[in-house]
């Protein structure tokens, strides 16, 4: 079979990636600029026996996704700013109840209704801190159409393995852009499905093994009758407010991400070997940064690029190392300064950190980044 090369929109590639990963449930509410994800899923899911449902609002969208996940589905929803805000409570529920699912946020300008048809990267900290309570987040950020596909697959793999909602932080620029890509053949990309328990139902504890990462867990209706609750619970899933059991649960939620940082860290490096000015950028803005790095090199500036594809957990160590090596770091992002706060937190060497920001709904240009590089090189 010859490889299929197709011109795809980011949103379409995301939906195709979901199907490739084995997604069999989509619940959501239409919102610009994420709508094409839902439309594509509505078309494709029933063909493979999966289920698509358009709910009455975004809260119901993620609610039905979490319900399907409890029943064993590989489930997904897709939304944008206002809908993402509505989903926050249940994002926390998914973390607490350890339900795997993928939430796609095609970011647009905000706050409030903001710029529905224009792009931004201004939900980056909401993705990390939007829901109440201590919790961890795993979030990926694609910079190309191909990555919309491959990272959606990876999101499902991580959700299944880490038993938690995983966020794909797209943006309108990437979501509505088209590029050609070679559709991966079945088996070409890894697809992970969590193991199902084999022990006797009487011995089964739904939240029993260590941090739960990579472990077996059961679906409702599979003969293991367990309880799931958003209340703090013991290993059996029964509500508790005992301090020791609460601490056990909170430590488990923390450790499942904190103890697996090397596995979760994924940063692409370009021209980093001798880089003196390092640009930190992700998602759509990183495309501009890629161009700027090359233009800077052409002008004799030793510039390099750090492009995290997994933005949460933040690649702390990588950034700390890069800051140690660099004379200055330029953070290029499409907001008023969000991930730059994390970069500054990782800055243990008091290296200069300069923002290259744009937040008017338009894409930051290579010239704008070059100006900041020039300032950094001074």
């Amino acid at each position, binding site marked *: 079979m010859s490889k299929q090369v197709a*011109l795809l929109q980011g949103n379409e590639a995301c939906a195709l990636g979901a199907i490739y990963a084995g997604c069999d449930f989509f619940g959501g509410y239409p919102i610009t600029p994420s709508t094409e994800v839902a439309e594509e899923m509505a078309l494709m899911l029933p063909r493979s026996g999966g289920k698509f449902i358009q709910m009455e609002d975004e809260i119901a969208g993620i609610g039905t996704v979490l319900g399907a996940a409890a029943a064993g589905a590989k489930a997904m929803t897709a939304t944008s700013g206002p809908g993402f805000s509505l989903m926050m409570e249940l994002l926390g529920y998914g973390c607490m109840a350890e339900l795997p699912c993928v939430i796609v946020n095609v970011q647009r300008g905000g706050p409030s209704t903001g710029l529905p*048809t224009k792009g931004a990267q201004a939900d980056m900290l909401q993705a990390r801190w939007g829901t109440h309570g201590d919790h961890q987040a795993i979030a990926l950020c694609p910079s190309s159409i191909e990555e919309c596909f491959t990272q959606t697959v990876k999101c499902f793999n991580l959700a299944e393995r880490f038993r938690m909602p995983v966020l794909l932080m797209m943006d309108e620029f990437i979501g509505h852009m*088209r590029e050609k890509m070679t559709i991966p053949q079945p088996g070409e990309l890894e697809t992970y499905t969590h193991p199902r328990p084999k022990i006797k139902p009487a011995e089964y504890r739904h939240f029993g093994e260590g941090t739960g990462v990579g472990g077996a867990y059961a679906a409702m209706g599979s003969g293991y009758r367990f309880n799931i609750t958003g209340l703090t619970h013991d290993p059996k899933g029964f509500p508790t407010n005992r301090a020791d059991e609460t601490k056990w649960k909170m430590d488990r939620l923390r450790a499942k991400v904190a103890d697996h940082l090397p596995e979760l860290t994924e940063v692409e490096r370009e021209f980093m070997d001798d880089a003196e000015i390092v640009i930190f950028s992700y998602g759509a803005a990183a495309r501009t940064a890629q161009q700027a790095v090359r233009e800077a090199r052409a002008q004799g500036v030793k510039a390099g690029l750090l492009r995290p594809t997994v933005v949460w957990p933040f690649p702390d160590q990588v950034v700390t190392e890069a800051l140690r090596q660099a004379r200055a770091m330029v953070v290029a992002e499409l907001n008023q300064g969000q991930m730059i706060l994390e970069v500054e937190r990782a800055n243990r060497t008091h290296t200069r950190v300069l923002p290259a920001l744009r937040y008017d709904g338009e894409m930051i240009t290579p010239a704008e980044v070059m100006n900041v590089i020039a300032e950094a090189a001074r």
Partner: protein
Amino acid sequence: MSKRHEIRLSGSGGQGMITAGVILAEAAGVYDGQNVVQSQSYGPEARGGASKAEVIISDQEIHFTKATAIDILLAMTQEAWDKYSHDLKSDGVAVVDSFYVKEVDRPGVHKLPLAQMARQEVGIEMVANIIALGAIAGITKVVTRESLEKAVMSRIPKGTEDKNRQALEIGFRLAAGV
């Protein structure tokens, strides 16, 4: 062709500018084997308002995804010309609809009867975007005719093949007369 081509197709919502952009990108990317990035911007309205689609074609990897120095501009309305012609390069190629665009503030603009030909020869104005694609490809050779034809056929509704093939033919004919 070792060059980055930035192409902007502009008009009003409903004139098929985004469809035209997708077809052009598919012709260049999938059938001609170039690297390609296609994007668009539009207002909240489904019909009316200024609308543009941009296609960047290059034999190199495309990093920056937006068009900022336009090599090829299509304007199907006066509003689109007024709004989107400012960053057309001095040696850029401009094609405008001669019926809807009356005032152009620079020399060398190709004024072609795109909408008129669509109405008179094909019978529906809707295919003016395909005529425009034919004209642009004919004038600039930014994509091959075979690839453009394949891309048109893969992206249009079933049952409209003849009308679109005719429209493409008209476009290339107009280009030959330039």
